[in-house]
């Protein structure tokens, strides 16, 4: 048996790649907070930054969200593009919201299906694809 601890290291894929999972636990970036402080964000709630990047923006993750939402984006899209779990992103969004750096636009109330005009517009749009 070899005594060199590095023997065989190159045989398999590197263990520190994406497959190995995050090096930092996901909720590190929220300082351990796991619940948003206000009402929840739907996956299709739209977000728009109301400020450009400020020097005192709390963290690189907050900054990344602000940069992304310079144009309107849905919560799911923001989470995907900053590559953080949804729960983490929701906490960060609450920070930005309470700091007045971001605006949210919620989808219509959940107890109603869209009206006839909207549905017809969707059908028309799908046909035109």
């Amino acid at each position: 048996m070899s005594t060199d601890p590095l023997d065989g290291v190159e045989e398999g894929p590197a263990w520190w790649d994406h497959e190995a999972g995050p090096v930092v636990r996901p909720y590190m970036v929220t300082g351990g907070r796991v619940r948003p402080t206000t009402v929840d964000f739907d996956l299709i709630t739209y977000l728009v930054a109301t400020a450009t990047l400020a020097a005192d923006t709390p963290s690189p993750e907050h900054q990344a969200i602000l940069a992304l939402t310079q144009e309107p984006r849905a919560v799911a899209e923001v989470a995907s593009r900053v590559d953080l779990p949804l729960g983490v992103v929701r906490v960060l969004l609450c920070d930005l919201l309470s700091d007045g750096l971001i605006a949210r636009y919620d989808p219509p109330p959940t107890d109603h299906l869209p009206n006839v005009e909207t549905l017809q517009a969707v059908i028309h749009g799908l046909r035109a694809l």
Partner: protein
Amino acid sequence: MDSVRSDTAPVPQALKILVAGGFGAGKTTLVGAVSEIAPLRTEEVLTTAGVGTDDTTGVATKTTTTVAMDFGRITINPSLVLYLFGTPGQNRFWFLWDELATGALGAVVLADTRRLADSFAAIDYFEQRNTPFVIAVNCFDNDQRYTAEQVREALDVDGHVPVLLTDARDRMSVKNVLITLVEHVLTMVRSSVPA
């Protein structure tokens, strides 16, 4: 916290459609066939303590599970955007479905005739929630072993639920599934609202 939705909102109205079905039924493929962006992935990190079927008895350290949801986007017009969300395939993540299904326009249940039973749970779920849905039978490699009517019988769904054969890789075919779904929703809206 204030939330806003008005006609002057500087953002489009977003609608969501769910794509459900068993593992490997082709959900992400279907989303990718019509999405204007390559399907994106969002992840939710769960501790096993929150998942009923995972027995953590005797496990000293909690582990985390990542549940992925793939989604795509179709811009209908400047003021209307459709999001398609693939639901997590495993039944033990039902509670994530609740969040997804809330406010959804409707759902596509993607069925695989080789594993038809995999779609029972999704059908039950949408029936119970009164979420409008259609059943799209994914015909892999033109393997049309069954007709839509045979599948309808096997799944025992109500006569008003559209059942259609599809190819999840084919843009026109998937477009047709979505149009069928929205027309189905339109029929429901019209019949529930007095003219």
